[in-house]
């Protein structure tokens, strides 16, 4: 038993030495996740702000200027250009310089004063469907409240809807996305490192040397996975630190629970990595296989695209995705302060998958290496 531990320990040491011998690689391993988190944290935002608006004000009245002012004062729109010629608007939208065209026809102020319905036209560039959908909602609300402000004598609306958002009162998407980036980065680091580490030995031809050494296949697997699990955990701490200190994401739940979930999650990532290493012969193949696994895992996890908008078949598929369960746990712990009571289902799924995948992959690897 003692000798066994020693052998695994030596193997882990060898592995670490190999990783850290290349100072650039070790830098990439610890700096890249932070850069990626920053990029993800800032870029993965579905908040719609500062929508480029092209204004055609054919009326040129105080009222029309006031309406434009209401658009920009909301913070959702900024004026990207002003003209009186419709052709300029078309060109701006064609070039992607404006997303919204706000057209106020001549006679707008006159109609308002006469009590005739005054018309405003809103042209949206639907190329970015999300921005267009949300901006449409904002624009409708702005016109409505502007009208209500100008005509206080008008009878109040029959129904008044008061909205409140729980867990994220400002509806900032960053609070939702940053914790989830953790899931994406952890799986990427663990998957890629594990898969490449074994395939590299096979490609260079040193795997045979390891196989004829007194190491048993089980020890070999431990030696090959422990270092990357540790690197993954260090990355986890780094990412956590940046999320809390830099992005100031609220953390309402238990850190211990998060750690437990992360370990289970890392297990499944290592398992998939091991599995890929048994089927690939070259590092290039392994890299591509990692990619082939990583993309659907990320896209079908609810990270950027809500699971609830997927068709039923894909919604079912996501149940087999460890990242989906991990993200539900991470978001629950971060944003809602949820405990095991609310998250036990996800924990159960993650445990089954983590242990199951790792065990299957290890078994396959053992048999493959025993067969030569």
């Amino acid at each position, binding site marked *: 038993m003692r000798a066994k531990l020693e052998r695994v320990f030596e193997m882990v040491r060898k592995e670490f030495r190999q990783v850290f011998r*290349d100072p*650039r*690689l070790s830098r*990439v391993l610890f700096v*890249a996740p932070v850069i*990626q988190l920053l*990029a993800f944290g800032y*870029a*993965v935002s*579905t908040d*719609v702000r500062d929508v*480029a608006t092209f204004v055609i004000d054919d009326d040129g009245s105080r009222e029309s200027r006031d309406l434009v002012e209401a658009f920009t004062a909301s913070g959702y729109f900024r004026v990207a250009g002003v003209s009186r010629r419709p052709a300029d608007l078309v060109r701006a939208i*064609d*070039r992607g310089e404006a997303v919204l065209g706000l057209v106020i026809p001549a006679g707008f102020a006159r109609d308002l004063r006469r009590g005739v*319905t*005054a018309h*405003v036209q*809103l042209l*949206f560039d639907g*190329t970015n*469907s*999300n921005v*267009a*959908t*949300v901006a*449409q*909602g*904002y*624009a*409708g609300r702005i016109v409505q409240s*502007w*009208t209500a402000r100008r005509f206080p004598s*008008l009878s109040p*609306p*029959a*129904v*008044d*809807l*008061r*909205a409140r958002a729980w867990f*994220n009162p400002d509806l900032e*998407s960053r609070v*939702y996305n940053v914790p989830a980036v953790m899931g994406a980065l952890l799986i990427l680091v663990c998957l890629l490192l594990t898969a*490449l*580490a074994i395939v590299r030995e096979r*490609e260079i031809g040193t795997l045979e040397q390891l196989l004829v050494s007194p190491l048993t296949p089980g020890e070999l697997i431990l030696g090959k996975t422990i270092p990357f699990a540790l690197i993954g955990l260090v990355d986890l701490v780094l990412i956590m630190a940046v999320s809390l200190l830099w992005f100031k994401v609220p953390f309402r739940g238990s850190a211990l629970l998060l750690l437990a979930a992360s370990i289970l999650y890392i297990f499944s990532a290592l398992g998939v990595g091991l599995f890929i290493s048994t089927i*690939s012969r*070259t*590092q290039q*193949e392994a*890299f591509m296989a990692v990619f*082939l696994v990583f*993309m659907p895992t990320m*896209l079908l996890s609810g990270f*950027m*695209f*809500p699971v609830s*908008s997927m068709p039923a078949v894909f919604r079912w598929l996501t149940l087999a995705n460890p990242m989906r369960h991990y993200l539900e746990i991470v978001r629950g712990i971060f944003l*809602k302060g949820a405990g095991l009571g*609310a998250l036990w289902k996800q924990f159960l799924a993650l445990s089954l998958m983590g242990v199951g995948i790792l065990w299957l992959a290890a078994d396959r690897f053992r048999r493959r290496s025993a067969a030569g």
Partner: protein
Amino acid sequence: MIEPTRLLAMARKELIQLRRDPRSLALAFALPVLLLILFGYAISWDVRDIRLAVLDQDRSAASRELVDAFRASGYFNLAAFLERSGDVDSLMERGGAQLVLVIPPGFARDLGAGRTASLQAIVDGSDANTATIALGYSEAVVRTWSARVELRGRSVAPPVSAESRVWFNEELASRNMIVPGLVAVIMMVIAAMLTSLTIAREWERGTMEQLAATPVSRLEVVLGKLLPYLGIGLVDVVASSALGVLLFAVPFRGSAVLLMVLSFLFLMGALGLGMFISAVAKSQVLATQLAMVATFLPTMLLSGFMFSIDAMPAPLQAISYLIPARYFLVVTRGIFLKGVGLGVLWTQGLLMLAFAAAGLGLAVVKFRKELD
């Protein structure tokens, strides 16, 4: 300076090497198809079937009519009728409902008396995007219903009417936005996954010295290695555009020739960049990590492919100007959805040309320096 026979010989060598690794080659074609299917079928931002829970404390004909209006809108799925207000907490924490509509007692009485009746909407803000859109939809439902109630009394024309129209993507489907962008992402994937390993592999296996000893010039090595990947990339562009148009009915309104020419330029730049990374890294593990950070992630995150650049903080917006995919995306969306030509896209065309020259130049210079 370039001897065609040597160049072709180099390309043939690379092609033979690629052919010997049929699985990598298969993956190079499988990945774009997988991405297309995922983006085309599985994921979207289109928010439908929002899980709605109703806490109807009024239990009147009016309140039931309002709930019916929500149901009939097609955006909401009635997930639960709550009995007590205490149930809201646990339901929201479990994620059982995304929106809870609270109809307070006295709702029908207020309506009948001509007073403004209030309503409350509680939205799960943790997914800010879905929450924003869900709120927008519920406001629209309430607004229409409210107007109907008002009209029962008297008929008054609204003082301002805003007509909104959407161009280029009339049904606001996120698929139409994603598929043209995917062409750019797929090219970057090819560059990152195939090209970035090609020189690093030769270093790692020790065949680089052999290559250096042949009369092949540096430029010929770079171009020769590039040609097969250029072929793969162009096939991928055609295949993914065709699939997008035929399978997913994404409109294609511009010139196919223009798309091919600009894609060719973009691909040259991307492949050059991949080669440059390969020459810098010298080890495949490092090359894969660098390729992810330098080519794939920026293209996914900062190009405007999925997330609007307007909403990003200023430093990130500044960085996005350095990302060639940002310009190429204007090209693909312009050609697919807007049907614009070189008259609008000439700036982007020049930038693509500059990118191709820079990518290739960097690769050749770096490669020469490393070899000498």
